[in-house]
């Protein structure tokens, strides 16, 4: 990195700039109609003033520290269209659409869109004034963007930063960056043709990456860092050609050099990804930030097509805030609307039916039926979900301007719902344990098992140890992996393709988000030996406290099921000790391991290089580790800024890591 970037990075990491923020009382109301929303937006924009940080040439930083009323949005807007056209052309498009209709609702909606853009332009004007004094480079760019489309890579970065800033002011919680290496590539090519070097473009990318970290503390979901700024790089197109280009590499390099939380890198790979790409990505893993997260095109694309996505959209897929597979630009999917809680469901089935079951097959059949019923219940409950309109975000979504219809009301091509599947490993382990201990070995009676669960194993240490010694998911043992497959099959058959009453369908996934803690807290002791209230495994991973045979067995267990059927997202998460990556040999072999996972048909992999001793030390001496970053579930955050429950879960995942 250049000396200038090093200075800016240091400025970011010192966090002193946050003291510049003017604190404003909260009190922005959560308006429900577009007209009112524009009024609130005006108040917010009025409270903001232009602010340039150290050697800042992008601007659009938050002036106040107030948090907006949150609005839904875990999707990838079509930045490319907006930054290529510019707001003037978009205003024209909106006006044309308004001329074609007399529907007062649509007209009001169009008026709302125009209102938003006008307010944005007002603030841009103030930036122009400031930039004229302080940053001629930015001033010059602002003479063109956002009125006109960007032409250079720099102008595109300024426009992007502006879009992110204004979308954030509208309260969009999880704003993903999508395929930055694809939609920014034309600007890159133009700059290269004009004689710019890769080093100059890298510096711009690095400044842009740093700039989207400045205010990330204001936009947290469940925990700080959970802000959705994921970026997708690489991938293959429908002809099988690699889309991993020079810009993809520069983005990886920027992430590697900066070691900051955002953007969270997702790398699209497939059977034809060359070893060098995996090896370079492994260097990024070595940084310990928890990215890249790998996405397997060979599984995801066919999976999305099976769900009804048009092939051209499926090939263009991106990743939502964490790991939900979505399509950019024309997809207003709600990929994390609810969660199937497998361990609790398995518990309920046992509690109600175990005494009457004469065979394990009977219990398994009842479990599968219960999963189907739970799909009925979840879909009925969430089909009634009402989402507030978002006229500004809709400007960025294909189809909304033409139809003057909100993205959540059918303005876009896709309005699907995604359902997470939490604790699959715990659920499968519990069933496998009952199969062995109760039905096969008859070492514990049904009554005894239920009493042990009721007592949270108090006085039943022996039963618990027997349960814990049974086959577990992650050891490449068909007995338990087959049970997991049956559960996933019941889930996907029960929920995929169901009508969501919002013009879309439902999709099944393997993610848990924060539910591995939240639902775990509510769940009684389960037959895998997990105590009452204890967490589940995070997403699609072996249960906590399970000592597996090792990474090869884990990978095999979690790639057995045909993952194209359950593609809402949710990664296998594995930790490797950071000493494995201490030299080139370790890096190469880790890269090979990832490649094997992809070749075996894994859909998503989150690989974390981690050092348990360092995390424990950071708990005792947080002051020594102000910038220690860890992967939490679908995102990375500063270790010190996490609740202790999340810190402990991460540490506990590592107990068997030597």
């Amino acid at each position, binding site marked *: 990195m250049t000396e200038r970037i090093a200075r800016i990075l240091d400025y970011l990491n010192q966090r002193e700039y946050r003291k510049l923020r003017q604190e404003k009382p909260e009190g922005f109301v959560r308006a429900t109609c577009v007209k009112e929303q524009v009024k609130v937006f005006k108040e917010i924009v009025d409270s903001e003033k232009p602010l340039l940080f150290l050697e800042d040439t992008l601007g659009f930083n938050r002036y106040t520290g107030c948090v907006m009323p949150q609005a839904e949005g875990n999707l990838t807007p079509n930045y490319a269209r907006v930054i290529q056209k510019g707001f003037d052309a978009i205003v024209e498009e909106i006006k044309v659409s308004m001329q074609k209709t007399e529907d007062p609702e649509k007209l009001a909606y169009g008026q709302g869109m125009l209102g938003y853009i006008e307010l944005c332009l007002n603030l841009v004007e103030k930036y122009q004034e400031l930039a004229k004094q302080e940053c001629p480079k930015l001033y010059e760019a602002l003479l063109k963007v956002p009125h006109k489309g960007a032409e250079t890579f720099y102008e595109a970065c300024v426009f992007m930063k502006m879009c992110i800033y204004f979308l954030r002011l509208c309260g969009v919680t999880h704003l993903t960056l999508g395929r930055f290496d694809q939609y920014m590539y034309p600007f890159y090519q133009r700059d290269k043709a004009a004689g710019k070097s890769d080093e100059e473009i890298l510096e711009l990318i690095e400044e842009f990456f740093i700039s989207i970290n400045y205010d990330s503390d204001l936009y947290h979901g469940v925990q700080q860092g959970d802000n959705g700024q994921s970026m997708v790089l690489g991938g293959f197109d429908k002809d099988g050609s690699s889309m991993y280009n020079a810009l993809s590499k520069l983005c990886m390099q920027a992430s590697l050099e900066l070691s900051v939380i955002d953007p969270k890198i997702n790398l699209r790979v497939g059977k034809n990804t060359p070893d060098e790409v995996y090896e370079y990505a492994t260097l990024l893993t070595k940084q310990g930030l928890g990215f890249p997260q790998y996405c397997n095109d060979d599984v995801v694309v066919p999976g999305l097509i099976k769900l009804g996505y048009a092939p051209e959209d499926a090939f263009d897929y991106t990743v939502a805030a964490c790991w939900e597979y979505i399509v950019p630009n024309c997809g207003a999917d709600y990929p994390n609307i609810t969660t199937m809680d497998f361990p609790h469901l398995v518990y309920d089935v046992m509690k109600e039916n175990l005494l009457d079951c004469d065979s394990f097959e009977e219990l398994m059949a009842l479990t599968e039926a219960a999963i189907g019923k739970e799909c009925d219940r979840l879909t009925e409950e969430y089909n009634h979900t009402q989402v507030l309109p978002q006229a500004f975000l809709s400007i960025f979504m294909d189809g909304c301007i033409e139809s003057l219809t909100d993205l959540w009301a059918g303005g876009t091509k896709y309005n699907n719902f995604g359902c997470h599947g939490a604790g699959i490993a715990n659920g499968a382990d519990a069933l496998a344990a009952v199969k062995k201990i109760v039905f096969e070995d008859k070492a514990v009676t049904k009554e005894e098992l239920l009493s042990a669960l009721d007592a949270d194993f108090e006085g039943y240490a022996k039963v618990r140890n027997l349960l814990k010694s049974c086959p577990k998911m992650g050891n*490449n043992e068909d007995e338990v992996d087959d049970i997991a497959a049956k559960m996933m099959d019941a889930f996907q058959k029960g929920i995929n393709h169901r009508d969501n009453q919002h013009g879309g369908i439902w999709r099944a996934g393997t993610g848990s988000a924060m539910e591995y803690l939240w639902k775990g807290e509510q769940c009684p002791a389960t037959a895998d030996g997990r105590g009452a209230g204890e967490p589940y495994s995070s997403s699609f991973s072996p249960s906590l406290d399970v000592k597996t045979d090792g990474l090869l*067995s884990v990978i*095999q267990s979690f790639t057995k099921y045909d993952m194209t059927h359950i593609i809402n997202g949710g990664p296998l998460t594995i930790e*490797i000790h950071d000493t494995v990556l201490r030299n080139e*040999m370790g890096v190469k*072999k*880790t890269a*090979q391991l990832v490649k094997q996972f992809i070749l075996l048909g894994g859909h998503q992999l989150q690989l974390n290089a981690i050092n348990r001793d360092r995390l424990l030390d950071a708990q005792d001496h947080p002051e020594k580790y102000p910038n220690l970053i860890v992967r939490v579930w679908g995102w990375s955050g500063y270790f010190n800024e996490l609740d202790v429950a999340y810190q402990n879960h991460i540490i506990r995942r590592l107990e068997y890591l030597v």
Partner: protein
Amino acid sequence: MQGIVFSVEEFSVYDGPGIRTTVFLKGCPLRCSWCHNPEGQSYLPEIVKSPNGCIGCGACIRTGFTRESIGACPKNLLRICGERITSDDLVKKLLKNRNILNNGGGVTFSGGEPLTQPEFLFDCLSKLEGRLHRAIQTCGYCEEELFQEALKHTDYVLYDLKLMDDALHQKYTGVSNQKILCNFGLLAKSGTDFVTRIPLIPGVTDTEENLGAIAQLLKEYKVSAVEVLPYNKMAGGKYAMVGRSYTPAFDETAEITPRQELFERFGIQVRIL
């Protein structure tokens, strides 16, 4: 046939080419002062306790650190180190991952010292022939005939050389290096693929005299590369697990000097692991 195995480690990165699973056989004739696998030294199964996650409830002590204690630990931290396993079961377990291992990797038998359980080792190696790439990691301390036999059953050898001076070798490892050097000669002439490895122990093996002598030996045998393993400051970490204290006979805080130039002057490539 049964053997005593104290660990089967998947994805062991530094035990031979490619993605490998390493099988650790229990028992070792050497007592290296820097040994980081103390649980591999004794030939017999023993009960060990993982230090991570202990809540100090005392259940293991109350049950006398016996087999019974394993079930009594609420955190499941106790285990028997050195389970008896049949060659058939072990081979079956290894082959479960053959789809991954057969992409340039394989299996490595290490220890302890794998050649201290020769019948079991050869039985496993024979059963794996043609199915998985087989390596052994050895200190080379065994009879010549046994070593010749081992070479027949293996595709690759990771061979440790520690100290060229016999007196020092006896002082730091407990045994003479005569057999080791003799077997190394056999290996070098055998045509079997191998790599030489040297543990770099500060002030003990990393002296100019010792590394210079090893380099000279490698040159004589026309060896083109060597792997050096810097002393692991965590080496003492597992002694508590087996109820022993770690008392290295050297200053473990001293700097290590790899002295690559001693090898490179003979055109021998040095890889630091």
